[in-house]
């Protein structure tokens, strides 16, 4: 049987899967011929689930049972801003789990975020298996370059739950570069501007023949095409309220309809200078009548609404360029990735900022999956012909007294890498050492993301100051943080437990995998 490994672009709004066939990376279509699948999971009454574009239709018809944009919540704490925002706008139930984690409650069941993502992965896997006619379990899954350790770990867990062997967690911009550079002997510095549904990344790569070195990466995991839709949606709500002198901001169903219309209007404005938005039966008034919304939206109006969002992306570009110690003149090419980069305002702004025409040779919606497939294929054997030298996007920090942190591994450091720190016992017969690990760019612990609290126990019984514990902080090729400790004198490894982390335990993952396997993927009859 032929060895096959798939590359999966697990997006906030849409997902995509590709494999290398006869030496060529190819995005696979589902049975309806669709290449791009909404990252939507709809839970049906009979216990089965629908994933993809059919599930997306259920956002309006079965809002409480249909989960979308789960990626925005993966690896986040319940008290995070992102979670509060999702609770306000998402029709499905977002509840609190152990250790401040986030859970989704649907039809009397409680799901972790990795379990939701695992449904999308299960669908991607089914598309591959239907195409090749054999079981395929090896996969490379992409994540935004700016994802922190918790978000990467949870994405990897999603893969395990879907029964996949995750060969690599790959950064989306790096994957895109790989898709562009594949088979070409180019020697240049390339900027990847990646605006996805929910995240924005920029990576600067130095490509030297077969080596892809990431010089710097920066990002904003709270900024994406979704936010553009929200702006249009808010404007539509305003228009409705003004036209009819009613306030529909509390009508969730109306908001969902307008959000859908907003997304369509945004997409149409990439091609047209103005669009006519007509949403039938938006809201039923106190008088029992249903009211439609009809309004025209022009491109300049739209540009005005989203200008500050566009500007935010260039602040991130500034940061990356500074980290790489480059100016726009040093750049040989700019690659656009992600559906929202089709917007003329983005293309024009990118052209203006980098003083060059951006490259769009590869479909911005498919390029990440294609790159992931290339990397997946390369990991199958030792004849690997391209090398990815990636970096860690955020500074790894150690918590110190008084709510402060100190850096251990700086952002934009090449990975894999490790660093060690030595701790000395502070009291006689001290049994354990406890440390907290963070990621972020602030000295203040509360302004960083806590990854977890590690406890090293079983220390040698001795007077204070006599036991030295050497703690190793490792960032692996997936960008995932591993922490271990040993007694420097005896060389004995201390046993490590992680607490205060929202992540799933091995037992939980196994149970979730069993539940995932038992869940059937339903198909509701193809595209409309």
């Amino acid at each position, binding site marked *: 049987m032929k060895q096959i490994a798939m590359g999966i672009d697990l997006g906030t709004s849409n997902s995509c899967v590709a494999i290398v066939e006869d030496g060529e990376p190819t995005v696979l279509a589902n049975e309806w011929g669709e290449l791009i699948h909404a990252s939507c999971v709809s839970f049906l009454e009979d216990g089965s689930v629908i994933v993809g574009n059919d599930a997306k239709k259920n956002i309006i018809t079965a809002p409480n049972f249909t989960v979308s944009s789960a990626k925005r919540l993966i690896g986040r704490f319940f008290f995070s801003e992102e979670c509060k925002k999702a609770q306000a706008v998402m029709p499905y139930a977002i509840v609190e789990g152990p250790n401040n984690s986030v859970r989704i409650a649907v039809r009397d069941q409680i799901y972790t975020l990795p379990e939701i993502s695992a449904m999308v992965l299960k669908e991607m896997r089914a598309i591959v298996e239907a195409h090749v006619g054999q079981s395929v379990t090896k996969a490379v899954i992409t994540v935004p370059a700016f994802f922190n350790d918790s978000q990467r770990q949870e994405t990897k867990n999603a893969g395990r739950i879907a029964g996949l062997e995750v*060969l690599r967690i790959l950064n989306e911009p790096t994957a895109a570069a790989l898709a562009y550079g594949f088979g070409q002997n180019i020697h240049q510095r390339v900027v990847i501007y990646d605006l996805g549904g929910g995240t924005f990344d920029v990576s600067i790569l130095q490509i*030297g023949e*077969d*080596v892809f*070195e990431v010089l710097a990466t920066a990002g904003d995991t709270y900024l994406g095409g979704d936010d553009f839709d929200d702006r249009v949606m808010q404007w539509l709500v305003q228009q409705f309220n003004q036209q009819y002198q009613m306030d529909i901001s509390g009508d969730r169903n109306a908001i969902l309809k307008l959000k859908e219309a907003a997304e369509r209007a945004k997409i149409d404005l990439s091609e047209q200078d103005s669009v006519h938005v007509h949403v039938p039966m938006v809201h039923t008034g106190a008088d029992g009548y249903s009211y439609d919304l009809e309004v025209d939206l022009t491109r300049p109006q739209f540009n005005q609404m989203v200008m500050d969002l566009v500007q935010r992306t260039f602040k991130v570009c500034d940061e990356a360029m500074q980290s790489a*110690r480059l100016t726009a003149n040093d750049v040989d090419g700019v690659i656009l990735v992600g559906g929202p980069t089709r917007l003329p305002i983005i293309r024009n702004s990118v052209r203006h900022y980098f003083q060059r025409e951006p490259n769009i040779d590869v479909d911005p919606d498919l390029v990440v999956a294609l790159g992931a497939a290339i990397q997946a294929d*390369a*990991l*199958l*054997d*030792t004849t*690997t012909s391209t*090398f*990815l*030298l990636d970096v860690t996007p955020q500074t790894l920090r150690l918590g110190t007294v008084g709510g402060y942190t100190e850096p251990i591994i700086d952002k934009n*450091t*090449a*990975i*894999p*890498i*490790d*660093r060690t*720190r030595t701790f000395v016992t502070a009291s006689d017969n001290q049994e354990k050492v406890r440390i907290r690990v963070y990621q972020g760019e602030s000295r203040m612990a509360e302004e960083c993301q806590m990854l977890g609290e590690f406890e090293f126990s079983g220390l040698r019984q001795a007077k204070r100051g006599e036991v030295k514990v050497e703690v190793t902080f*490792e960032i692996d*090729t997936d960008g995932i943080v591993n922490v271990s400790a040993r007694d420097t004198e005896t060389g004995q490894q201390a046993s490590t437990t992680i607490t205060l982390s929202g992540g799933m335990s091995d037992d939980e993952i196994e149970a979730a995998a069993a539940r995932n396997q038992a869940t059937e993927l339903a198909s509701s009859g193809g595209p409309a």
Partner: protein
Amino acid sequence: MDYTHPQYWPQLMQLSQTIDGLDYYQILNITQMATPGEVQKAYYGLARALHPDKFYGIGDDALRGAVHKIYKRVTESYSILRDDQKRKRYTQDINGEQRNEKLRYNEASEQQQKQEEREAKEVAKTPQGKKLYAQAQLDMQKQNWASAYRNVQSAMMFEPGNDALKALKDELAAKKDA
């Protein structure tokens, strides 16, 4: 050389044991005089030979562990030697008496380097001078000697009697014309 071939495995296993005794230049197999371009070239060469991805499909856990350990030291070597300031500090350290304790760039080296950076910032005394001096430092990191020279020259307009700036200006004058 294809290190994934079993004939090289004993060599890799051994290197993973002895790598703790090597400095970053030895790990990258370059001299202490290597240019930034040569540092990068050495790093790319080792990435091609020893990147853990190449060994992904090999079932031998011990070997993969050894390669991973070696490769982490390669990235560590590169991340220090590509940074002019860290490289300067590190090179002094390994040529000094405490060489054996300083083979890996550690907390102490970092503290010392930060201190030196702070002192460096105090080279200029006036607000305008400090600003221009900082700009010159950035130029120097980019090896843009002409621009660094101009910035130091401008800084001296605010601090005509500053000997440290004068010395730097002369140094840069030579570099930009080289």
